[in-house]
């Protein structure tokens, strides 16, 4: 397996489908709400997913992402709203008649059946001839490199092998849409990384649309064509991974994905392509290179990622986007170091710096007074 994922497919297509104005969505989720008694698990979610996408629903526990997935599979009926798959309204269609397969978080392999029989289970329900069933089972087991374990029972397999059986079982019916519930959650870190690339390879080869539910933001970043971030039953942002990271639309997304420093402030001046904000957190002015179309004197937050802040012992003479503080903590991580800097306002912020040099001598350390600065293009203003 190559160490680098094959991402060329996304890049060679001139414009991804989800950015084309007139593209027809493959999965249409329209105003879906699901209530369990008084509790609203999914709150009027609308979402379009396009053919061949690897869409990640990302959120913490209780965010409604699994409920949404179960409604796509047909295990739960929405309280209101509807789901269309390939143009067909799924309302009232039971799971066994949907062109959808699911890979369960617990894998849900049938313990009384061999690997082979587990994979053949779905094909037999279609009434295929046994020769055809055997051919397709062998084919898919070869694809996930499990041909030699076909006769084993699930309890005789390792966690990683079980995961691949579950994947093979859900792929063998060639569904239009594959749903994956925390597909890598039960694997250890190294295996998880390998399997991520494996998933992307399979998705690319088979041309099946994937919807993946995960709570792991790194997993979503690596796998997804687009990410839908969920919180309290709502989708709070839908965007490509780099957009979600670099241009979070609200405080929740900024804080949930990666680490972020947030400065609270008031809008002083706003033009079409710049906004000036006074923040007591940095005891100065922030200048951002985009407009926010909000009222003056509005209270906003400005988000800056830890790796986008320059840190130095040399004083910087800048009127905006600069401040000073004292290093309160240092963590050496090998490839990078994390500094915690206490600003004069008392606020503590986080800065990461790549360890470009091997020399330890002149490193920044505890109690150093440092000067911080960042570019106007590194900041995002968050209104919500």
């Amino acid at each position: 397996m190559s160490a680098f994922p094959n991402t060329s497919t996304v890049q060679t297509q001139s414009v991804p489908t989800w950015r084309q104005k007139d593209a027809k969505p493959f999965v249409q989720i329209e105003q879906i709400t699901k209530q369990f008694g008084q509790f609203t698990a999914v709150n009027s979610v609308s979402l379009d997913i396009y053919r061949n996408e690897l869409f990640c629903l990302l959120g913490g526990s209780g965010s409604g992402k699994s409920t949404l997935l179960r409604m796509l599979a047909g295990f739960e009926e929405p309280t209101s709203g509807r789901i269309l798959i390939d143009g067909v309204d799924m309302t009232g269609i039971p799971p066994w008649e949907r062109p959808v397969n699911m890979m369960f978080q617990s894998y849900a392999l049938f313990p009384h059946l061999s690997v082979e029989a587990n994979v053949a289970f779905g094909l037999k329900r279609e009434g295929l001839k046994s020769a055809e069933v055997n051919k397709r089972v062998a084919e898919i087991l070869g694809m996930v490199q499990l041909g030699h374990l076909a006769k084993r029972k699930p309890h005789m397999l390792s966690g990683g092998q079980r995961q691949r059986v579950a994947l093979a079982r859900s792929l063998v019916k060639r569904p239009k849409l594959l749903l994956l519930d925390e597909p890598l959650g039960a694997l250890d870190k190294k295996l998880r990384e390998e399997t991520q690339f494996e998933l992307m390879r399979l998705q690319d080869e088979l041309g099946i649309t994937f919807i993946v539910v995960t709570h792991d933001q790194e997993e979503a970043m690596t796998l997804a064509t687009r990410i839908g971030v969920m919180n309290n039953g709502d989708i709070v942002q839908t965007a490509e991974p780099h957009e979600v990271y670099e241009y979070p639309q609200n405080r929740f997304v900024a804080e949930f994905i990666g680490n972020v420093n947030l400065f609270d402030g008031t809008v002083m001046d706003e033009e079409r392509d710049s906004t000036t904000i006074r923040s007591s957190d940095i005891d100065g002015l922030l200048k951002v290179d985009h407009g926010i179309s909000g009222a003056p004197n509005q209270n906003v937050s400005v988000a800056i990622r830890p790796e986008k802040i320059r840190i130095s012992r040399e004083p910087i003479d800048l009127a905006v986007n600069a401040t000073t503080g004292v290093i309160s903590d240092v963590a050496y991580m090998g490839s990078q170091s994390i500094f915690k800097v206490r600003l004069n306002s008392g606020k503590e912020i986080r800065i990461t710096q790549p360890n470009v040099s091997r020399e330890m001598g002149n490193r920044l350390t505890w109690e150093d007074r440092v000067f911080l600065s960042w570019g106007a293009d590194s900041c995002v203003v968050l209104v919500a």
Partner: protein
Amino acid sequence: MLSKLRLGRMAVILVPMLWLAAFFFIPFLVVFKISLAEAMIAVPPYSPLLQWDSSNAYLTFKVTFGNYLYLFESRFYLDAYLSSLKIAAISTFFALLIGFPIAYLIARSRPTMRTILLALVILPFWTSFLLRVYAWMALLKKNGLVNDFLLATGIIDQPIQILQTDFAVYLGIVYTYLPFMILPLYTTLEKMDLNLLDAAQDLGAKPYQSFFLVTLPLAKPGIIAGCLLVFIPAVGEYVIPALLGGSDTLMIGRVLWDEFFLNRDWPLASAVAVVMLIVLVGPIMFMRNSNKEAE
């Protein structure tokens, strides 16, 4: 150190071993010994195994297989065995048919409800078994509650004979042993991962298919355990056929009782018991094998 450890282990196993030896193996040997004797009018009513004739200094060791030969030659005993096995098998089948949905329902109900339902299953044990069978006699007799109800609703126009029929015996056995069917079934069904049913449906199985292809195979250990727990005591059942059955209800437990207390033929009764035990070893071995397979 090692010997101490082994000694400790031995001591732990020793207690149940002694218990089994004292209350199962030694009594079985006694019964087996009596089955090799001849019946006689004496106390105890059978010939001794060893006899010391002091005048001639003879030690006589007398064993007869006549009782066993008699069992196999007489059509009556063979019929009694077969009839017992038949009644036990049919009762077990109906206990499974009734017990499975009950166990399924309990296993799928909410945890608080589960405790209550399980308590209800066990509740009849608080009343003596004998009393409950007597209660059935009162219910099933000519002017009993069941006949009264059927007459009142106009389903029948004169009382029907329920008591002292095979039907009453089946009813009694199924009623009595149903908890022994439900409890092991409940245990296996409760352990089942419900995601498996979702997975089956997701792969295209309709609900009845996922029941037969997933639920039922996974409940197999419970089905086997439940069936044996009903079947084995039902084969040797005495009280139910004696109280609810007719004079023509032939069961080996009743035969045994009659040989023992009416005919005072202890050796033949013992032979009947030994053969019954051997007959029941078959299903017990079957359970052992299927358990091993499941592991």
